[in-house]
């Protein structure tokens, strides 16, 4: 439990730091009439040092519909000369001075800039007072994302800690997940019936982490079918997943000591079109009649087409996805469904590998943290304290 104490301490230290990061400098106002007032300039935060933000107010009595243009002037000397750098017909109260490759306009960290803003009504322009001096600065860290950094930092630390401790031999308990129990059984059932197992890793591109994760699960499934010598069909709906799946399946057979069972017809590509894949896979389900259909990955509307077709042939259907919008259909039409995070627990569950069980434990701790934030935050909010909401501002 020592570690937990350390985390609490760390968290306590983080809170004030995150609080400070939210502090905004106070306004200093200089009254001015008939044109924009309170012209404020500031280095744009968290950028590459090539932008300056300008903010201003309009006098209350001004008729905004008269303004046809706002013009921005800039100089490197407080006394001028001021050169017009931009003009636009929008009535806004802010502007960002940025470099523009086409016009050759630059904003440099080497210079100090002064600004003026003018309102133009079609015939005359009213120029504001000169702003304060500003010089852009490069920031090497986006302080607005400090909270993301800290929360992910905690998570990463927990993951690495639990991986280490479970490698050292500390047992990590994992509760029974019926869907994954059924997965092993259903492969056995397919063997008895002499029918293949169908595996579909979703239809999403590899940029969806679920697709990548599905490859990890596929390797265990391949090992499983290799032991039973059950035929395997992997249907793929994105081109880049083809080499990934082929590699994974070959690897799985090799790990199981049966590289001879691998053949080039296992992984089948049904084009990137979602519904062409749905049509093709439905065809496989009806004609090759797999005893088990495993849908693990990122699915979209085709989920119900597949699951209903699979129901027709009486296959055992096991689904799992993190795509919230498709979970209802899998839950209704499949025998077992891994809901959201349960899907991400599959590789740890199937392999019982300490390296993979550790992160699960870490995710549980993060959920405690989330529950703490929600619970304590709600109590504080009830009394009008919005500290937590501000800490989590992105």
């Amino acid at each position, binding site marked *: 439990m020592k570690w937990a104490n350390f985390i609490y301490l760390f968290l306590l230290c983080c809170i004030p730091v995150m609080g400070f990061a939210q502090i905004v400098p106070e306004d200093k106002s200089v009254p001015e009439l008939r044109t924009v007032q309170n012209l404020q300039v500031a280095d744009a935060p968290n950028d590459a040092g090539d932008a300056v933000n300008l903010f201003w107010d309009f006098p209350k009595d001004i008729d905004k519909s008269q303004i046809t243009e706002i013009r921005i002037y800039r100089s490197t000397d407080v006394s001028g000369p001021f050169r017009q750098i931009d*003009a*636009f*017909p*929008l*009535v*806004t109260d*802010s*502007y*960002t001075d*940025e470099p*523009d*490759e*086409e016009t050759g306009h630059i904003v440099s960290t080497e210079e100090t800039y002064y600004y003026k803003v003018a309102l133009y009504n079609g015939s005359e322009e009213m120029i504001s007072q000169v702003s304060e001096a500003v010089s852009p600065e490069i920031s090497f860290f986006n302080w607005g994302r400090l909270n993301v950094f800290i929360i992910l930092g905690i998570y990463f630390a927990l993951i690495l800690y639990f991986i280490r401790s479970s490698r050292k031999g500390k047992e990590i308990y994992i509760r029974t997940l019926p869907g994954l129990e059924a997965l092993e059984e259903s492969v056995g059932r397919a063997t008895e019936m002499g029918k293949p197992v169908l595996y579909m890793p979703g239809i*999403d591109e590899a*940029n969806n982490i679920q697709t990548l994760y599905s490859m990890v699960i596929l390797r265990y499934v391949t090992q499983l079918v290799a032991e039973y010598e059950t035929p395997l069909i992997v249907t793929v709906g994105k081109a880049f997943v083809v080499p990934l799946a082929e590699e994974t399946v070959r690897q799985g057979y090799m790990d199981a000591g049966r590289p001879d069972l691998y053949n080039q017809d296992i992984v089948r590509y049904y084009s990137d079109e*979602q*519904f062409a894949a749905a049509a093709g896979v439905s065809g496989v389900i009806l004609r090759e009649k797999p005893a088990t259909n495993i849908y693990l990955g990122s699915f*979209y*509307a085709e989920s119900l087409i597949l699951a209903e077709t699979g129901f027709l042939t009486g296959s055992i259907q096991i689904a799992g996805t993190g795509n*919230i*919008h498709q979970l209802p259909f899998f839950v209704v039409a499949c025998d077992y469904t891994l809901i959201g995070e349960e899907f991400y627990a599959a590789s740890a569950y199937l392999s019982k590998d300490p390296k993979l069980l550790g992160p699960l434990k870490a995710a549980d701790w993060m959920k405690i943290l989330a529950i703490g934030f929600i619970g304590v935050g709600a109590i504080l909010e009830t009394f009008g304290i919005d500290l937590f909401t501000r800490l989590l501002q*992105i």
Partner: protein
Amino acid sequence: MPNGMNAPETTLEKIERMDRRIVFLAIAITIILPLIWPLGLPIEVSPQVDDFHEAIESIPDGSVVLFPNDYDPASKAELYPMTVAILHHFFKEDRNLKIIGLGLFPAGPPLLQKAFEEVAVEQYGAEYGKDFVNLGYKEGREIVMASMGESIPKTFPTDFFGTPIDSLPIMLGIKNYTDIAILVNVSAGYPGTKEWVQQVVSVFDVLMVSGTTGVSAPEYYPYYNSGQLAGMLEGLKGAAEYETLIEKQGIATSGMDAQSLGHLVIILFIIVGNVLFILNRRNKTKGGRF
């Protein structure tokens, strides 16, 4: 493993486990008939549709609207009527809004172009390049959204027809999201509303409303609740309600009769299924699996 494999089935059980093709046939008939002979049932407007309408009303005249239409023919049924209704709203009063259309689905921009031509040009006489523009499709999903934050002209150097966009008057002075008054997204999934919220609203603080398919709508309700989306239209119903708000009855409204009846039939099937289920369970001495 269906239970009662050994016991002989009673008539009621047979009806409960009836051929699903009967359901299919019933659905087909109840939807097709009202399309041929409409009934004209009334329509009520939901709050999120009102908010959507309000958000577009709230922007000043002459502002620039970013109008990404992220869908392709697969979702045309629900979303195209929406695009049409929104365009009616943009152009119906002479508000001089400047509409910048684009699409992050490869097959999206041609549909958008069709809508622009059918509504903006033919009905309101709007002019391409002056009142509206179609920037077309750009590969890269979220990357496109993020790089538009840097510069829209650099992300889309040419429009749908390959014309350089600096030759179009509408694009003058438009750099990035700071020049956009509202982001009106019509989205069928990925990349779409969720990504615009993640990449644009939370980073550049842009006012955004979204019209989505009925299926993705529930996923976006959290964004509507947390204020990241100012309003939402969902599915054909959202489009029909919107048509009511802007007083322009169109294809969405006519489809709603079929919708109503379709829903009714499915609900009836569920009720009948449950009655049979309860009767069958009572008739059996042992309840089987459940």
